[in-house]
Structures are given as C-alpha cells and as structure tokens.
C-alpha cells in the first residue's frame, strides 16, 4: 500500500510460533480433514513389506532382491514421475507406456542398426519423447480434443510405430556397454557411500538453509525439532539402505561379485530432486498447480494456460523416454512389447497410489516414487510367493482401485471440512 495513510492498527496476522506438538497436531488435523498425501502409500508399503518378509524371509528379504526392486521398477517410476505433471492438470496420458517403447526402439536402432555412439542415441531417444509430448499437447490444447481420446489414439498409434520400427516384430539387442550399465550395473562400494553421504548432506543443508532464511526474517518457521527429525530420519533410511546394498549379494561371489548401490538409484534420485524443485520452487511449478486448481483463475492472473498444458505433456513423454531407455538397458534388447502390457497401468497406478489426485491440482513427484515402490513390492513379492501373473494383475488392480477410492473419499471429506 502506498496510499496516504495506512491504518496499521495492532493485530494483523497472529504469528503463533508452532511447537513440535502443535505441528504434529496440525498434521493430524490435516490428515483427518482429508489431506492424506502419501500417507496411505507409505503405510501400504510398510504392511506389504512386512507380509512378504514374513512369508518369504529367505528370498524377499535378501539384498539381491532389494537391489532388484530398483531395477525392476525404474521404468514405471520414470513414467509415473512424468504422469504426475499431466495428472496435476487433471489430464491423462494413456500413451506413455508405448511412447517409452518407441523411444527405446529409437535408441536401439541408432545404437545397433546404425552403429552410432550412445552420446547420440540417448539424446535422440529423449528428443523423440519431447516431440511426442509436443504433438500430444498441441492436439489437446489447440484442437481441444480431450486428452483421454488423444492419448488413447496415440496408445494404438505408437504400438503400430513400434511394430513398424522393429520391422514386424524383430528383436533388436543392445551391446553398448554404457547403455547396458545404466539399469544393470552398480556403483562401487566407495562411490555408493560418497553418493549417499552427499545426498544426505545436501538435503540437510537445503532444509537448514531454508529454516535459517525464514527465521532471520522473522517469518513463522517449522519447529526446529521437526526439521531435525526429518533430516535424521532420511539420513538413517539412506545409510541403512546403502549398507544393505553394499553387502556382497552374489550367489557365487567367487565368479561374479555383486555389491554397491544400483546406478539407477542416483538417476531416479536426481530426476526426483530436479522435478520436485521445479514444482515447488519455480514460477513454472506454481503455475502448473494454479492451472490444475482453477484454470479460469490462472487465466485471469495472466498465466499462459495453453503453454502450461502443452509443457506437461512434453515433460510426461520426456520422462517416458528415459523410462524407455532404462527398460531397454535392463532387458538388453527391444521387442514389440517393450512399454506394453501392464507398464502404463502400473505407472498410472504408481502416481495415484502415491497420492496424486486424478482430479488435478494435488500431487508431488515423490508420490510417483513411493507409489512405484508399492507396485514393485507387490509385483516382486507376489511373484516370489508363487502367485500367477493373473493373480498379480487382479491384486494390483484392487490396490489401484483402493488408492483411487481413498483419493475420492478424501476429496469428499475435504469438501465437507472445507480443506479441499
């Protein structure tokens, strides 16, 4: 206000300094009010892990299997991270699975058939993803076709493109060492610890820095106890995980030693941090939430709604292309079913199970990672318990349904308590 006199009467916003207890109470009130976030997914993950650990303590709990979980779920987690952006606008991308397959095929063709180095093939696969997203986004925004229809058509179309690229269904193998190492090899034990400790230190610095910056300007801060607890908890979790993964897990260590954090773990972590930063700390991220929450309000605020809408499809397909690269790396080859069958449904499931709302406006990138972990644990654990694929699909379907119901019920509850 610059006008003549501002009546700065006493009062204003009450700046009650929250304590640890009040912070926990507030969190619980939000949960009861329907703002669940990733809580159901985290609880589900704990319960499932406990069940499988008891039922199959020999195989499920082994370090070998723990490392496997990361390699198995990488593709789904990447597609799901991209889908979070699409879902935030209340849109859907059903073609993400086969988009990742097409990008994987581009990678394989350039590497094997054309003999190009990975430094050309990987960017080309990523660019393919960006172009796919651009086309989808333009069709949705400029022609106004619902994203459900556009991406359903693309789902079929990309399946056809994949078949054509593979000349009717040939299998292309990859021999490039770098690409093969991405989702198969591990960091050395030393590097595993370096990466973990740098990660924990980075998180701690970011949290403390934020706390200090707010405190120095006399703004309401989270209680220090909460910040410290968060840092210590993440630190313990990462250190414990790294310790397990740096143990020898080969069945026959004399022939082939297997230890260290899978390379794919830091790859997932880096993208998760980048996109979390983009969504939470940049103007672009703020605008994505705004368009997802109230498109009309965003438009009146001068936000380029169409450009935001196109961009989320680009991010979605770009992340799918990385998912494609990782699955090709893991399988060592591309076939017409790469990115097909359950990949897309698992990815949508991962995002939704993790707490991303199908109604738009609510979700975080970490939701996709936690949801992806739930899906991977179900798939892996039920496999180890000897359930058939059919039974796994039925159970995963039920879990997805449960997650969507939690979302819908939480929304209703939130509407009733005025908490969204």
């Amino acid at each position, binding site marked *: *206000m*610059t*006008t*003549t*006199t*501002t*009546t*700065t*009467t006493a*009062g*204003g*916003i*009450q700046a009650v300094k929250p304590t640890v207890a009040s912070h926990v109470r507030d969190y619980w009130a939000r949960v009861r*009010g329907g703002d669940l976030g990733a809580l159901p997914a985290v609880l589900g993950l704990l319960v499932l892990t406990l069940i499988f650990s008891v039922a199959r303590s020999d195989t499920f709990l082994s370090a070998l299997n723990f490392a496997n979980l990361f390699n198995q779920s990488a593709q789904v987690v990447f597609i799901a991270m991209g889908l979070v952006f699409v879902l935030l606008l209340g849109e859907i991308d059903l073609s993400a699975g086969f988009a990742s397959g097409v990008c994987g095929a581009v990678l394989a063709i350039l590497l094997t058939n054309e003999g190009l180095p990975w430094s050309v093939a990987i960017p080309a696969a990523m660019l393919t993803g960006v172009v796919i997203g651009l086309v989808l986004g333009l069709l949705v925004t400029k022609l106004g076709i619902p994203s459900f229809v556009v991406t359903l058509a693309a789902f079929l179309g990309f399946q056809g493109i994949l078949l054509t690229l593979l000349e009717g269904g040939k299998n292309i193998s990859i021999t490039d060492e770098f690409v093969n190492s991405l989702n198969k090899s591990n960091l050395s034990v030393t590097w595993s610890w370096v990466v973990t400790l740098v990660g924990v230190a980075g998180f701690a610095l970011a949290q403390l820095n934020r706390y200090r*910056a*707010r405190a120095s*300007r006399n*703004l*309401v801060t989270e209680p220090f106890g909460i910040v410290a607890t968060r840092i210590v908890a993440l630190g313990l979790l990462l250190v414990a995980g790294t310790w397990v993964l740096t143990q020898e897990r080969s069945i026959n260590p004399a022939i082939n030693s297997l230890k260290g954090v899978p390379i794919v773990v830091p790859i997932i972590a880096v993208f998760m941090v980048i996109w979390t930063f983009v969504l939470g*700390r*940049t*103007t672009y991220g*703020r*605008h994505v*939430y*705004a368009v*997802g*929450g*109230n498109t*009309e*309000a*965003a438009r*009146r*605020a*001068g*936000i380029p709604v169409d450009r935001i809408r196109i961009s989320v499809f680009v991010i979605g397909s770009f992340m799918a292309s990385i998912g494609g690269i990782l699955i090709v790396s893991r399988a060592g080859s591309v076939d017409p079913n790469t990115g097909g069958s359950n990949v897309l449904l698992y990815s949508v499931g991962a995002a939704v199970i993790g707490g991303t709302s199908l109604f738009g*406006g*609510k979700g975080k990138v970490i939701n996709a990672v936690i949801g992806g972990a739930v899906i991977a644990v179900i798939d892996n654990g039920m496999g180890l318990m000897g359930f058939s694929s059919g039974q796994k699909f039925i159970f995963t379907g039920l879990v997805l349904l449960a997650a969507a119901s939690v979302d819908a019920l939480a929304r209703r509850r*939130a509407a009733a*308590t*005025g*908490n*969204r």
Partner: protein
Amino acid sequence: MTATPLLELRGIDKSFGPVQVLHDVGLNVYPGEVTALVGDNGAGKSTLVKCISGIYTIDAGTVTFDGDEVAIHSPRDASALGIEVVYQDLALCDNLDIVQNMFLGREKKSGLVLDEATMEEMAGETLRSLSVRTVKSLRQLVASLSGGQRQTVAIAKAVLWNSRVVILDEPTAALGVAQTAQVLELVRRLADNGLGVVLISHNMNDVFAVSDRIAALYLGRMAAEVKAADVTHSQIVELITAGRSGDLGLPAEKPAEFIDITPGEAP
C-alpha cells in the same frame, strides 16, 4: 472530499453488433470514497466495469485518470494504471495458500527461485494494513477459508499492487450476515486508505451502509449520480427500476420510443 475525481468517464458508448449496451455513460470515482454502482440486471453494470478494466474497448467517450486522458485497451493497461477488479467468482485457486494466491501470475523471484519470504512479508503487510485479523496463517490453503475470508483475500490481492482504484463486483452476494459486515468494513477501510472504490451491489442495505456516492444505471444510461446522504432508499429503488425519481434521473420516455411487443392482433 477532494474536488477532482481520480477516475472520470465521459460519454461512454458501447455496442455489441446492433445492440447498444451503453449510451453516453459518465461516472466519477473519487479517491477516499466508495462509489456504489447500482442498476437492474442488464442495465450495463458489468459491461461498464469491463470497459474500465480493459476487457472491452469503448466505442466512444473519454476516460480520464488522475487528470490525464488515458486509453485502456487491455487488462494489462488497467493494472498499469492501478485499476484492479475483484470479480464475483473470486478467481482464487483452492489448492494454493493465501500468499500463493495473492501473488498468482506476478510472483516475486530471486534468480530462478520463487522468493517466498518476500512474498509472505508483503502479503502479511497488506493484510495488516487492511486490519485483517481473521486468518490464522498466511500459509493456509484457500480451500479451508470461509466465504468472507476468501473475499478478503481476493480484495487484498487487488490492493497488493499499489492499486488506486478497486472495483468490487458483488462482493457480498454469497455471504452470511456476519461475513457481509466484515467485508463491508474492509471496503470502507479501502476508501479510508485513500483508494477510489467502486462497489457493485444489488443490496440496498450494503449500498447505504458504506457508500459516499451512488450511481444508478438504467437500460444502459446513467440515470443519476448522487451523494448517498442526499437520497433515500426508495428513491434509489425508483432510479433502478424506472430510471427516474421525482426530479432526479432521466427525462420521461416518450411512448413513441417503445415498440409494442404484446402478443395479440398485429398493430
């Protein structure tokens, strides 16, 4: 009060195709005063507001702001002058908090990153200057606010930008008694802070409670611009419904200006 209006409209005409919606409309908005804009449905209130805020361009007439004649071609021009409109349907995002909503589309940045601390300080400062005491935390989601609090946030959002004229479109339409009182108090405070306030309302109690001047539109013409103290409740109602009241208002219509559309035999 001040003799010169902050915003002065003269002879505004606006047509949509063959339909002329505004005929030679004039309006004065004085700093430090609440000017109520009243009129029946279809009288042209919304059209007039959209002309001021740059959503529509005017066909004829002049707009004078702070003594200078100005041309408003887009909402951006209006914002640059310091004219902000608070729309009836609020235009807030439920999934964002108060600070995020107040800065939506005009976020403060330091480098690449959003400057949350500065935005929070500015938002708190603005709400304090309006003596808003009803919100618990600036980081509350807008979804958890009551109707009156949301209206407060929408109004605070409009005054955050050093605005000089704030136009409120039916700010109390969806509110209960206590909340209406709160919002009206806030409207009065805006004017006391030196802003020119235009209040569009259907509710005569609200109009008489806060406004200094009343401008009544009737079928696209400005029937009268009067001081609130000089007129009665029923005079305003007559101005709204008939376009005149005693010696106030438009001259009596000549019957020849009307076309008989009563069903029955052909005329």
